[in-house]
């Protein structure tokens, strides 16, 4: 391997050598290199293997359109496959590996696929792997996946972090080349808020690859001067290494900034990538143009590259594409590349131009008019080309061929929201759609050819954009640009009669024969051809191949490229990492965690937690010696039933309702009457949906004349608030009522059991005797000698004498600690949601397991609660429907096994004894089950047809999953204290 680095020149820093590894071998480059330029400088021409045929491939481009030079960069958790070597900035210690080769890049067993190529034509997946279908999962898919030639992701976690942010501006400029810089300067000087983004390591775009002068300075110097000026202005944000990948509704743009992908070790205090959502009032798309390859036999040989890329390598990186090169072009721009090669002392053997009329060329190279390249030689690197001119063929030994098939304006962003590009015969290219919705295209992206014209166009387009949002601007004057010959191009979609495969899509190995085959087999529509041949479906999304494919399709079908049209443009313009899209939402930040204010208290007492939505709730509190959860739960239940326990109920939804019409409003929200609820009292409340079914239940306490405190179930805390806001704002805006969610403001502790009052009165200053504070009392009280004001509610979920004590959230832990300390001699027991669940089943209280959206109040024995006096409440009218009342409905009952050692599961169905299981024979189902430590056997709640009429009847609990038939007896749902005496004790 010989060095291709020139002795001088380029924008690299030759005082800063950088060491890196490729395929296990050490190399050296310079600061300012890309991985591709450094590899080329080291004479590494073979960098990858093609996807299907495993053909040797080299570097083709100098930017984000690269189809061949895909490598895996980084190690361990920082491994990133399918990086384009042409966009990877070199850093010290960079480790890169080639892909899709085994055992090595130089000797790849997969090369045999090239011999099988007659069988691997377009649509071969569809034809070969059609049947038998059973083989897909076992054989075809794993085989295709293994053969598919892309890099492999790491299984290790990514150690870096990512973030997302928003930005707002008057003008977004996409691309910081000649047109983009001029547009940004125009807007910046007018005082507009400007964001200018460019995917490269710094602003400049094509100016960085240019030797010409503009504004009295070499192009790169001009770019640096303008960039520095922009960066110094307070109203301008310059985003480098930032790809604007998508245009969404309302002029929202998606962009990804690679903040630290170019450093050896990312700083921990910065993200490696940042995802931007940019809201722009106007956008100038100055994304430039992409050079098209030419389609001729052997055009994928390492050493064949885009002419403009070769120009970038020589001018910007001081790297020669070869020692003796040829140029194959159908347009005038590649003559500049030839001139720049010669200016750098590179021997240009010939310029091969299929046109009869060729531009003037004052260099050394032989200009061959009416000529075409019809073949290439070499295998892992180019050694020569075969040129046909008239009837004669000539072999020219070269080690690099620079090709140019014309230029495609990069219109992707302008077309992502449905607008179609327009074909231009003059430009032999698709031009961007007409300006719309705040997006205008400038410079080469609009089909403008020369440097000076691009700068002027960028400035004048910015003026147009700004005038739309009422900002007067003057076009930025960059000074004169060096003259260049007028652009001319003649279409050459493929070279007929050439030898060897002529590739259209390099990354997916689609060649001209595939396109012809697709048309012959009826897949000639551009969208069909794309899918049938996979043209444009690789990670480069056909940046080089799409327009050539369209041109060839047009030839085969005897029409024009404009008639064929393009496939649909969609985000993303270039691949975006999952890390950037996920941002901070990974690991424990994937979703928020809600912890009760009593979480630490529960943790201290050894709680096992259970996730309920975003909440972590304490489920039970195992003690030493308890090895199974049931042991803990049984103990907790018995402690509450016989003594006293405390439980964290802070996760309940808590809403305060205030306003002159709060009583009237609540009366319309609940199906039971609440208007007459006195101050200082609590009441159970049932909300219906407008269709008459139960929505949620909870308690309502009247704290003052116009102030209420509502609890909802944990699950519907947010839903109930939104529902009430809807009713207040939309249905009854004339009512004076306001809501505040106070779920997070109050820690709420249930104190339950026959000795709960004995415990509580030791910390409550007020009189809470049964007379002074009876069942369903509610009010403000003082704790511990006036140290703290709190709220006390005498409500019970367990069925025991019980209270709920609410204190400001930050005092929750201290109050719980105090209760535990004071209650220790009494044996106060913390209990969790499992024990709470057991006790509510023992008491026949419902949860959303019973009120499951198919249940009306009568079904759960609450029919008489529903007000018949109220003129209106949510659900009133539809509740009266035929079918929502009547004997045959499923109704709430208890269920106990005939044999006390039997057990049944939630979801099991109820059958009459002797009935075969069927929909018709179904009598209902089990909604909740538990082991009742009080009764010493399992019990359940169930919804059963005519249930309350059938108490005492024996049924079968049929469980198809467990293959069980359990004999059970229908019972009253209140297994414990059915008369409710304990509540009032």
């Amino acid at each position, binding site marked *: 391997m010989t060095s291709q680095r020139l002795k001088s020149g380029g924008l690299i820093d030759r005082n800063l050598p950088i060491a890196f590894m490729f395929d296990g071998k050490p190399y050296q480059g310079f600061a300012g290199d890309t991985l591709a330029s450094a590899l080329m400088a080291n004479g590494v021409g073979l960098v990858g293997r093609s996807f299907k045929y495993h053909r040797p491939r080299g570097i083709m481009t100098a930017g984000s359109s690269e189809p061949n030079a895909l490598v895996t960069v980084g190690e361990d958790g920082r491994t990133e496959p399918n990086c384009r070597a042409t966009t990877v900035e070199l850093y010290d210690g960079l480790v890169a590996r080639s892909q899709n080769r085994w055992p090595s890049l130089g000797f790849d067993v997969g090369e045999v696929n090239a011999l099988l190529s007659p069988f691997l034509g377009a649509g071969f997946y569809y034809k070969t792997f059609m049947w038998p279908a059973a083989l897909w999962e076992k054989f075809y898919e794993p085989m295709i996946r293994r053969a598919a030639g892309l890099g492999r992701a790491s299984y290790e976690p990514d150690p870096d972090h990512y973030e997302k942010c*928003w930005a707002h501006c008057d003008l977004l400029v996409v691309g910081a080349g000649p047109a983009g810089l001029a547009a940004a300067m125009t807007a910046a000087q007018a005082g507009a808020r400007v964001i200018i983004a460019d995917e490269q390591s710094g602003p400049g775009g094509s100016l960085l690859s240019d030797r010409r002068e503009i504004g009295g300075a070499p192009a790169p110097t001009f770019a640096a001067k303008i960039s520095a000026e922009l960066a110094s202005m307070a109203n301008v944000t310059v985003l480098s290494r930032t790809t604007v990948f998508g245009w*969404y*509704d*309302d002029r*929202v743009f998606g962009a990804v900034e690679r903040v630290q992908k170019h450093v050896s070790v990312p700083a921990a205090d910065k993200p490696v990538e940042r995802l931007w*959502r940019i*809201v722009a009032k106007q956008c100038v798309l100055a994304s430039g143009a992409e050079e098209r390859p030419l389609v001729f036999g052997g055009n994928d040989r390492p050493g064949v590259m885009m002419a403009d890329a070769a120009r970038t390598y020589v001018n910007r990186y001081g790297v020669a594409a070869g020692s003796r090169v040829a140029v194959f072009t159908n347009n005038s721009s590649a003559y500049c590349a030839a001139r720049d090669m010669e200016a750098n002392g590179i021997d240009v053997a010939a310029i091969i131009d299929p046109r009869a009329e060729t531009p003037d060329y004052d260099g050394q190279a032989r200009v061959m008019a009416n000529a075409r390249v019809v073949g290439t030689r070499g295998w892992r690197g180019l050694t020569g080309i075969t040129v046909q001119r008239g009837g004669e063929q000539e072999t020219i030994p070269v080690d690099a061929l620079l090709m140019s098939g014309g230029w495609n304006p990069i219109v992707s962003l302008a077309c992502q929201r449905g607008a179609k590009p327009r074909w231009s015969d003059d430009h032999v290219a698709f031009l961007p759609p007409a300006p719309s919705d705040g997006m205008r295209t400038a410079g080469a992206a609009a089909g403008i050819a020369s440097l000076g014209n691009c700068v002027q166009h960028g400035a004048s387009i910015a003026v147009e954009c700004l005038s739309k949002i009422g900002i007067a601007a003057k076009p930025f004057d960059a000074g004169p640009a060096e003259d260049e010959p007028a652009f001319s191009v003649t279409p050459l979609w493929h070279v007929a009669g050439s030898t060897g495969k002529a590739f259209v899509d390099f990354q997916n190995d689609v060649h001209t024969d595939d396109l012809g085959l697709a048309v012959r087999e009826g897949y000639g529509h551009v969208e069909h051809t794309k899918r049938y041949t996979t043209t444009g479906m690789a990670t480069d999304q056909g940046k080089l191949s799409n327009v050539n494919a369209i041109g060839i399709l047009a030839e085969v079908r005897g029409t024009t490229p404009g008639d064929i049209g393009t496939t649909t443009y969609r985000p993303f313009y270039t691949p975006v990492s999952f890390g950037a899209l996920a941002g901070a939402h990974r690991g424990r930040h994937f979703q928020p965690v809600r912890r009760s204010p009593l979480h630490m208290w529960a943790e201290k007492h050894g709680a096992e937690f259970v996730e309920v939505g975003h909440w972590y709730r304490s489920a039970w509190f195992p003690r030493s010696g308890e090895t199974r959860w049931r042991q803990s739960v049984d103990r907790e239940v018995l402690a509450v039933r016989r003594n006293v326990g405390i439980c964290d109920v802070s996760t309940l939804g808590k809403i305060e309702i205030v306003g002159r019409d709060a009583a009237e409003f609540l009366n319309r929200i609940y199906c039971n009457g609440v208007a007459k609820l006195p101050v200082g009292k609590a009441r159970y409340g049932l909300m219906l949906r*407008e*269709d008459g079914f139960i929505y949620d239940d909870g308690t309502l306490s009247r704290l003052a004349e116009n102030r209420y405190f509502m609890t909802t179930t944990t699950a519907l805390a947010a839903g109930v608030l*939104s529902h009430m*806001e*809807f009713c207040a*704002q*939309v*249905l009854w*805006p004339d009512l004076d009522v306001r809501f505040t969610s106070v779920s997070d403001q109050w820690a709420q502790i249930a104190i339950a059991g026959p000795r709960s009052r004995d415990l509580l009165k030791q910390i409550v200053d007020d009189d809470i005797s049964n007379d002074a504070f009876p069942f369903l009392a509610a009010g403000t009280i003082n704790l511990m000698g006036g140290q703290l004001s709190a709220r006390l509610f005498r409500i019970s979920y367990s069925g025991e004498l019980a209270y709920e004590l609410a204190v400001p959230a930050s005092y929750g832990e201290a109050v719980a600690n105090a209760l535990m300390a004071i209650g220790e001699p009494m044996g106060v027991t913390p209990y969790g949601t499992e024990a709470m669940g057991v006790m509510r089943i023992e008491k026949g209280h419902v949860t959303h397991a019973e009120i499951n959206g198919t249940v009306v109040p009568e079904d759960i024995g609450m029919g008489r609660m529903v007000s018949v006096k109220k*003129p*209106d409440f949510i659900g*009133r*009218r*539809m509740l009266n*429907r035929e079918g929502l009342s009547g004997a045959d409905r499923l109704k709430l009952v208890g269920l106990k096994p005939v044999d006390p050692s039997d057990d049944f599961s939630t979801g099991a169905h109820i059958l009459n004894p002797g009935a075969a299981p069927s929909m018709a024979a179904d009598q209902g189902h089990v909604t909740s089950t538990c082991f009742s430590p009080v009764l010493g056997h399992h019990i359940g709640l169930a919804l059963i047809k005519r249930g309350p009429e059938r108490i005492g009847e024996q049924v079968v609990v049929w469980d198809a999953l467990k293959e069980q038939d359990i004999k059970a007896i229908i019972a009253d749902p209140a297994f414990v204290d059915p008369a409710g005496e304990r509540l009032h004790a």
Partner: protein
Amino acid sequence: MASLIQCPHCGARPKEEFSIKGSAEAERPAPDAAEDAWFEYVYQRDNPIGRIEEYWQHTSGCRRWLVVERDSGVHTVYRVLDATAARSSE
């Protein structure tokens, strides 16, 4: 779907801040209206392609309910009003 919604109280905000309830076309009937009217209100939805009105709530913002007039076939949002104001102006 639009990327930004012009909340009449908070200005242009990302759509992720809002939650959608559904059609705002039907108005809640009087409590004693005929069963047909209630059936229409609770169950019947036209699901047209074209201009529609929906209830959206700015749940992560001002928490006001809004009437968003948008096109169900394309991404255009024509108008966003506070629901109370929209209803009282009818």
